[in-house]
């Protein structure tokens, strides 16, 4: 089956095709899922190399579980987000004790640079602040506000209730606001944070 013919095939059906030995399904799932998995791992870890390692490991687990996948029980993305979070948590635990100041700071001259640099400065500042949140708050905030998932989806991924998700994201956003309150100039917010 040609690769572009797979564009409209749902993730779960692709996984079944993969388990049946369909090579095009392997390529389609690789191209569809790896960028999402990689981006999510980066947002939880703040390190590109580690995010690549986590992405490869998460995808390997997907390939291995494919023959046992039960249609209708879970979404592939939900399962993958959960696997990525668990892998990242393991790495973060091993990393504890690393100086938090080693997280790269945005460039001081970012407000004077062009829009692309400003956007990068904002993304880096947010990533640095996310890195200082407790793991579960960071995961909930990233899933809700960057990945754009709904609260019930996040509840399924984190295996908690919807109310707990709302609580985690609210606390996470307040913490981010506090962490970023002193950086108005760098981030292009001339009127500051409240």
């Amino acid at each position, binding site marked *: 089956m040609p690769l572009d013919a797979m564009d409209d095939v749902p993730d779960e059906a692709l996984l079944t095709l993969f388990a049946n030995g369909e090579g095009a399904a392997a390529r389609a799932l*690789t191209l569809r899922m790896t960028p999402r998995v990689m981006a999510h791992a980066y947002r939880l870890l703040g390190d590109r190399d580690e995010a690549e390692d986590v992405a490869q490991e998460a995808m390997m687990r997907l390939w291995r579980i494919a023959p046992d996948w039960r249609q209708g029980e879970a979404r592939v993305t939900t399962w993958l987000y959960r696997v990525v979070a668990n892998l990242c948590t393991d790495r973060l635990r091993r990393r504890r004790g690393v100086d938090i100041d080693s997280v790269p700071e945005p460039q001081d001259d970012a407000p004077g640079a062009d829009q692309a640099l400003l956007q990068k400065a904002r993304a880096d500042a*947010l990533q640095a602040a996310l890195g200082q949140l407790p793991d579960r708050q960071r995961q909930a905030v990233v899933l809700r506000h960057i990945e754009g998932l709904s609260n019930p989806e996040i509840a399924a991924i984190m295996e908690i209730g919807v109310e707990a998700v709302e609580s985690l994201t609210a606390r996470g956003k307040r913490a981010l606001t506090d962490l970023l309150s002193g950086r108005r100039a760098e981030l292009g917010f001339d009127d500051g944070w409240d």
Partner: protein
Amino acid sequence: MAGTDRNDTRLETLFEAARGAAPKPSADLLARVLADAEAVQAAAAPVPRKSAPRLRWRQFVDAIGGWPAMAGLVSAGVAGLWLGISPPAALDDLGIAGAGTDEAVLVGMLPGVELALLALEEG
């Protein structure tokens, strides 16, 4: 309240920047992931059977009606062989033409077989 809304708006600006700044997987990572996928598929692929003759034998048994029919066929064969080696005395009384002489006697048990053999000989 207005301050909270303004903070939310600014945070959303940062979230938007983060969405646009997601690192893309390298070509090397994609190649490694695909290689893993193909290795898992290859390991899961069924190994071709080496016992092809056995498969044909099984098909033959199935074709004649399974093992019960096979048992009947073997019994009939053994009985025929036994009659040929040691014919019962009662058969001597049948007065078959040529019996007891050196002449060969051909008894047609399957009509048409002679014609088929003749056709084979003539090509």
